[in-house]
């Protein structure tokens, strides 16, 4: 994560990472290009009513913008690749999974609910596309069917001001379908609606973690707790958990939780210039939850 100390620095990085020109940005904000120049040089701040607009345009969490768009900025860590911020060097890394495990039953928030609106789907897909290895996102119908059959693991999270802050999307699929992904005969964006199954009637269901994300450690804790609680209470322990991800900060977490790396795609990594290789994990949380 990078430590930002001014709003100008943040805007410059945003433009560079998204290959947006100053003219493009000016038209998104509907301001003169000289205004953008002044923001980037920290000669003027955004008017506070423009902060909300900046969240919409840049998809940067509101807390980051609030902290930096100030005469005396509050330095804040942010990583565009994983859309995560941190107010302290301490929370740049993911939270301790064992601490979450011991407390999981008491961790609840009213800021979380099942995905349902069109606007929810748009936020979720926008966030998924931040990840470099996802070239084409899965379609909305697929997510809606997954919500229908597995509402416990398909939810969206908002921050205390009501802005989108994270989500969790799991696809319940059959072993047969999963094997095709595992031996690379299909890619995950080729999963079709009729391959989403009712996991309750399946002997060995696969819970395919399509995408989990949150904008800061506190919100990540809410998501992980909800996921662990679900698997802890699931009567059928003969399930497979699987996920295909490219986050650079989850290696240790996955090791602690006891899931196995099946393959990683170094070629794709170098093509995408991503920090970590896109990789497939597989496992089951039963042992981890028992200890």
């Amino acid at each position: 994560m990078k430590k930002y100390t001014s709003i100008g620095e943040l805007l410059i990085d945003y433009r560079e990472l998204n290959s947006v020109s100053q003219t493009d940005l000016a038209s998104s904000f509907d301001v003169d290009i000289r205004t953008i120049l002044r923001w980037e040089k920290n000669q003027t701040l955004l008017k506070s009513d423009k902060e909300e607009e900046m969240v919409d345009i840049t998809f940067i969490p509101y807390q980051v913008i609030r902290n930096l768009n100030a005469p005396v900025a509050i330095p804040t860590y942010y990583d565009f690749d994983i859309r995560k911020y941190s107010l302290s060097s301490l929370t740049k890394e993911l939270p301790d999974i064992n601490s979450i495990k011991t407390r999981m039953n008491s961790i609840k928030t009213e800021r979380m609910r099942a995905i349902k609106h069109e606007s929810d789907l748009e936020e979720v897909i926008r966030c998924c596309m931040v990840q470099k290895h996802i070239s084409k996102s899965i379609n909305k119908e697929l997510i809606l069917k997954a919500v229908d059959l597995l509402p416990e693991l398909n939810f969206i999270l908002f921050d205390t001001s009501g802005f989108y802050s994270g989500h969790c999307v799991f696809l319940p699929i059959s072993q047969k379908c999963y094997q095709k992904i595992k031996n690379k005969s299909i890619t995950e964006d080729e999963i079709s609606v009729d391959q989403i199954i009712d996991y309750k009637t399946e002997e060995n269901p696969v819970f395919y973690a399509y995408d989990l994300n949150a904008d800061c450690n506190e919100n990540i804790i809410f998501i992980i707790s909800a996921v662990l609680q679900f698997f802890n209470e699931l009567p059928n322990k003969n399930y497979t958990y699987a996920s295909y991800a490219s986050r650079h900060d989850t290696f240790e977490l996955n090791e602690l939780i006891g899931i196995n790396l099946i393959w990683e795609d170094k070629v794709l990594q170098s093509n995408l210039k991503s920090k970590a290789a896109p990789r497939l994990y597989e496992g089951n949380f039963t042992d981890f939850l028992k200890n």
Partner: protein
Amino acid sequence: MKKYSTIGELLLDFRSINELSQMDLASKFDVDVRTVYRWEQNETLLRPEKEEEMAEITFIPNQVIRNLNTFYPIPTYYDFELRKYSLSLLTNTLPDINWIKKSIDHINDKIRPIETEKDIDFIIKYTLAQKDSLKNISKLVIREAIRLLPELNLIVTDEQGNYAGHSLYFPLTNEAYLLVKNQILMEKDITLEHLADYNEQSPPVFYCHSITADCNENFFFIIGSVLKFYRDAPLDKNYIYAIITSRYDSYDMNKDLGVRLIWEDVEQQEKLNLKVPPRLYEGNFNNFLDK
């Protein structure tokens, strides 16, 4: 902790807790009394340039002010008595001490020894805000304690470099500690003659005046640094750690640390109208750190 959703609410509480009139506050800010009234009614916001001044006048952490001084606030938890804020329900309670222990070697550059008069002023300001008039506020004693025991007299700064918390320890003579323990000597009456080089005492007494931080992340750094001293310093392992505290949020942590409650003073609690009684804990951290 109380959840604040507007800057007006925060200012109203600041005034009532500190028994200040709108006139008093207006003169501190050097504004018209009608301005204070409009702030409190959320009719106008403070100009961003005034936020720093507000942090100075009210001693409220800048992060709280930044989150609330906008028409689109980020609701934030704050406790005036503890001078602690939290951005999420999860961090309203103190952090898990075992997690701190595990990450004790986490590098941080936010901790430094208490050095300047300004540092001492912050500590006294904090102490006076606690409503617990049992605490020692003699600058002479504090300065001497810092000279004798720089390892445990520390300041933690926030990302802007401002005061965010501290740890203040008095190395007491054995005689002085016994007087405190037997409630013959009140902490506020400790003088220079009660302090000594801990290496010359058998056993050494590390008497904690106060340890605090404005949010859990900074608590982590300050507690971690203190525990690191007890773990690594060449110490007589029969040392005595002691603290008189009236914090209401530290019961669990003291239990986890394995320190014993020696007495609690219900009479003082009633007299000072405190949430919980001032109480003396004693012990050492050998067991906790070896586990």
